[in-house]
């Protein structure tokens, strides 16, 4: 007779399972092959840059899979972190583009053009750190994560969660957008920070730079997928799932629920921030239209379409929705919003697990049956169920 406690701890121990199952390695290989080989070979420079832009949204979707799918925290303010990361990068690039000789026609040379238009004569204090590239690279992640830490610590320590958290994050997205638009002299206002030229002397507007940045972006995305996979597979990931399903039981078992939630939220913010910075580099500007409520909720739908529990699904979902958006809104601009709206409803009502769910429930079993028919079935190892 097995001791129930032993049985329980055995089923919780996950370190004996491999880092990724064979199927997951295959998924990674397929995704990497598609993004790193197929797309660059078949697409022209313009389209590849467009895909690079979509892939920056995939960072956000990836964070949402951890934060929403695994930890059960729905954030409607991911645009905030995407935007903060993007703005940090844009501020550095803008300062580099507004050197004294580039801006000598201004009444105050050496400051960004929109500040000069708004009668600001000195660089504000919060722009000062962005003169240095290493500091910028740190701040790109540090600023959004710190912001996420403050928000989530305040909320989760008081056990605010679920719908309330969603509404508050949404309000924060709205506040930040209004603030950026309103403080034109400091932030560039509704137009955002535009006319970015060089990164430490390297012109990012050329085709070769865009090509290189695409690969940097894709590489970072794959690194983030692996990091998320590490979190998902670790004991931490199991606690996140347990917390999502029965928060009180996890709390009564002695875990600090708030701490884990804060971690998941900050991790999602860090991913979103990297995506935002890469967006600025590839697209060449950053504006408040990527911060507000509408983009934030759209990014949730990318994760939902891909499957809120699937890391690879998040990337495929992002690519699919954005391809659909581009091709639809090019040919039938009126129909696109109907389509997007219907997509939201369909994903919630009919496919709550998204593309990954369809794959797992419909396609994978059939494939396995085919494969099994070809070779002798392996001996199944029975899993012990924990005693209730």
């Amino acid at each position, binding site marked *: 007779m097995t001791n129930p406690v032993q049985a329980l701890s055995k089923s919780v121990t996950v370190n004996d399972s491999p880092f990724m199952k064979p199927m997951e390695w295959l998924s990674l290989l397929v995704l990497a092959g598609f993004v790193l080989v197929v797309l660059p070979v078949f697409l022209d420079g313009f389209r590849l840059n467009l895909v690079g832009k979509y892939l920056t949204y995939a960072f956000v979707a990836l964070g949402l899979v951890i934060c929403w799918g695994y930890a059960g925290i729905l954030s409607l303010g991911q645009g905030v972190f995407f935007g903060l990361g993007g703005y940090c990068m844009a501020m550095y690039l803008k300062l580099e583009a507004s050197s004294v000789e580039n801006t000598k026609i201004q009444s105050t040379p050496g400051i960004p053009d929109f500040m000069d238009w708004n009668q600001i004569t000195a660089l504000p204090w919060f722009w000062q750190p962005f003169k240095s590239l290493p500091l910028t690279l740190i701040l790109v992640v540090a600023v959004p994560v710190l912001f996420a830490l403050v928000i989530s610590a305040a909320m989760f320590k008081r056990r605010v969660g*679920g719908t*309330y958290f*969603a509404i508050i994050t949404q*309000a924060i997205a709205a506040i930040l957008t209004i603030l950026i638009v*309103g403080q034109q002299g400091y932030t560039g206002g509704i137009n955002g920070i535009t006319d970015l030229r060089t990164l430490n002397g390297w012109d990012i507007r050329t085709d070769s730079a865009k090509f290189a940045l695409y690969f940097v972006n894709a590489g970072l995305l794959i690194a983030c997928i692996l990091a998320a996979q590490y979190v998902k597979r670790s004991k931490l990931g199991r606690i996140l799932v347990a917390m999502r399903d029965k928060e009180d039981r996890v709390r009564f078992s002695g875990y600090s629920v708030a701490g884990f939630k804060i971690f998941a939220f900050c991790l999602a913010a860090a991913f979103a921030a990297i995506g935002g910075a890469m967006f600025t580099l590839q697209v060449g500007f950053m504006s408040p239209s990527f911060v507000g*409520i509408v983009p934030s909720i759209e990014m949730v739908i990318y994760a939902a379409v891909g499957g809120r529990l699937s890391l690879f699904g998040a990337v495929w979902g992002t690519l699919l929705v954005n391809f659909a958006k581009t091709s639809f809104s090019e040919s039938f601009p009126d129909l696109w919003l*109907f389509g997007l709206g219907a997509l*939201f409803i369909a994903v*919630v*009502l009919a496919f709550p697990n998204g593309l990954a769910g369809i794959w797992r429930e419909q396609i994978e079993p059939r494939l396995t049956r085919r494969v099994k028919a070809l070779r002798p079935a392996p001996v199944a190892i029975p899993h012990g169920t924990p005693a209730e």
Partner: protein
Amino acid sequence: MFGEYSLGDLGAIFAMQGFAGLILFSVYVLMALGLAIIFGQMGVINMAHGEFMILGAYVTYLCSTFFQANLPALFPLYFFIAMALAFLASGALGMLVEWGLIRFLYKRPLDTLLATWGLSLILQQAYRTVFGAREVGVELPSWLIGSVQVTDTIEVPINGLFVMAVTILITVSVALLIYRSRFGQQIRAVMQNRAMAGAVGIDTERVDRYTFGLGCGIAGVAGSAFTMVGSTGPTSGQLYIVDTFLIVVFGGAASLLGTIASAFSISQTQSTLEFFLSGSMAKVLTLLAVVGILMLRPQGLFTLKVRR
């Protein structure tokens, strides 16, 4: 920032801004009342609430053009008919949505958010297709135009007074409906304990449908009132949805009194600050204050003490 104004001027500024705030307050209360019923009582996050409001606004606009063209004699009274029609149209659409969408999602509140957001996109595009992307305004009957001169420096617009009267009327009727009628008793019973309410013979599905319809119908009336103070466009509703949710949460969901108190404080703060700062900073400061208070006091201003 008060230095350059005399005391009398300040009094007049506060009175005028306070009154402008009261009109904002009326629209907020009407929108938040519907949302408080849907979110507070049913737990459904209706992101399409703003679009239900705009439906009411468009119905009012249609009524105004119809009466102007066909029944000019009755034009002074069209607003009352428009309000009733707005209530019916938004309420009926609400019941349809509940039947077709919401009832499958009662156990997944976060998913209602995504589904109703999708619905709001569809409705926005539908309005754009039917009414065009341009904003439309309604023609006010002559008795609603003009203002009442209270003192030399303070004057009060009549349409604002009218909107406030409507708000008070609707708030009182909603309160009576929920706390004094048989149907209201059923609503409260279902929201407090669905299983028990079903066990004592209340048709909970029917109650859900009518409650959702009621909330949406009130949003329609809010839209009708909204036409008097602003113009209507396909995306006008979206501008109000965040504020409205914050009002409901700030007031303490499930408490009608809290909703009114929070709508009052938020609208007054915003409109008073608007005079001294730019409009965007006034809004930022108000919303920040609300979010800050909610972080310290997550249950909102008023709470309902019910064991769940």
